[in-house]
């Protein structure tokens, strides 16, 4: 059985990711001054230009800082599952582009460290009543994602 999935928002990341269009965050680049923004923004907060073009952001970077979320955030706006599993969030520096805030796949702060290599992935942060998984972007420690891939290949 394949589980239906949908992105939490359109225009946030490439969807559905495929071999020809792999997973990337969709940012924007100011056509006047080159400032990179995420999420994509038509107005530039550096030069006030209102013209920008879409730019796919790097899918890997380094962990700049992080924290954990150990209690269920208030709903609304949070619409994750009632049964709460702690998660982590952090800022990942995409070299030459920007620092982006994201959920991290590793909930244990003991397994996270500043400067760590991170790779973009997707997580089903919520499941709707009809079983549809709502996907959002996240970053995974590179070691962890490498292990997951090899485990997948083995199965």
């Amino acid at each position: 059985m394949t589980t239906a999935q949908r992105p939490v928002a359109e225009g946030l990341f490439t969807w559905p990711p495929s071999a020809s269009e792999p997973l990337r965050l969709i940012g924007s680049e100011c056509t006047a001054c080159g400032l990179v923004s995420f999420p994509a923004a038509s107005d530039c907060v550096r030069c006030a230009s209102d013209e920008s073009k879409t730019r796919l952001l790097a899918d890997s970077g380094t962990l700049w800082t992080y924290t954990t979320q150990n209690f269920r955030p208030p709903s609304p706006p949070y619409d994750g599952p009632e049964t709460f599993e702690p998660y982590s969030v952090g800022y990942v520096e995409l070299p030459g582009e920007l620092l982006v805030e994201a959920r991290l796949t590793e909930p244990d702060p003991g397994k996270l460290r500043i400067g760590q290599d991170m790779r973009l992935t997707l997580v089903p942060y919520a499941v709707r009543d009809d079983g549809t998984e709502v996907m959002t972007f996240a970053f995974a420690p590179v070691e962890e994602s490498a292990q997951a891939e090899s485990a997948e290949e083995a199965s």
Partner: protein
Amino acid sequence: MTEAVIIGVGLHPFGRFPGKPAMDMGADAVRLALADAGVTWPQIQGGYVGSFEVANPDAIVGKLGLTGVPLRGVFNGCATAGTAVALAARAIETGEHDLTIAIGLDKHPRGAFAADPSVAGIPSWYGQTGLFLTTHFFGMKINRYMHDHGISHDTLARVASKNFRNAAGNEKAWRRTPLTPAEILASPVLNHPLRQYMYCGPDEGAAALVLCRADQAHKYTSTPVRIRSTSLRSRRLGAFEVQSPSFPVGEPVVSPTVDAARDAYERAGIGPEDVDVAQLQDTDAGSEIIHMAENGLCKDGEQERLIAEGATEIGGRLPVNTDGGLLGNGEPIGASGLRQIHEIVLQLRGTAGTRQIPGTPRVGYTHLYGAPGVSAVTILST
């Protein structure tokens, strides 16, 4: 330009007051401030009133007297009270009024602040996926700061313990049970590395200040407190600020606290070395540590030694948050910064009771920081 001085302060206790509307708390605080100043409501010529939860805080005139006074509502995140006092002072400095009032009142529900991200100009997915929490920013900022500047978990706990201890001596504070650093370190982690007892909570309360022209202060008081400068700054591009889905790479850009502090010192003609007592935004224990440096009161990383030595205790070289700060008092947003100034006024008058710092303090400093990256500083002196 005419200088503004504070001639009266009033503080409604901070905490939980079931059944008591924010407006009633605000009116109580105003009456205390008026009595302290020895003036009556009809003498007030203008003012500014701040609140997050109350849509029309200026409606407080319905409880105080319909005198036709121009009373303007203000809101500027956690810097709301800094804005109210700055504008009330400005009205005197520019000659618009001789006698003004700054009022703050709020009544927040229990738990972390919740809102629709759209009110902050942020897309819905940011809140839906569990990123729209101000506590994340504080956890992430101190985590990075500890990594860069060698601040320990013990120091986080010492700061919280100090503020609860100071609050224990403050009959108007909310959290008056002293906690040891060990007890604080044993409380659950909410956002690594910050634990339950390292965070302040939203609560209820109100505060008010009566201001007048310096050259008329003698009519009301022998202990006016001068407003030497007020400054407010918002975030600059490249600074790491609360509720930011992303920010640019490049050289680090300082927080609006650094900008506001520099401006306030310059305009006051007062340097950080002159500050005798400070009230810093301690949304969490980490924030107090970071804000010591951002306000110029020490260098980055010095906090580890200063706090271990007790420098920020009531009897120390640089007492910080002598009334318990936000950790001890909680945060009714609109009132919080006026509560800070209330404490500085007591300290400079020498009437802070068991919390009174030794010697003859002359310069007090207050600082607010909040969403969406805004800081307000007020420098006061005798």
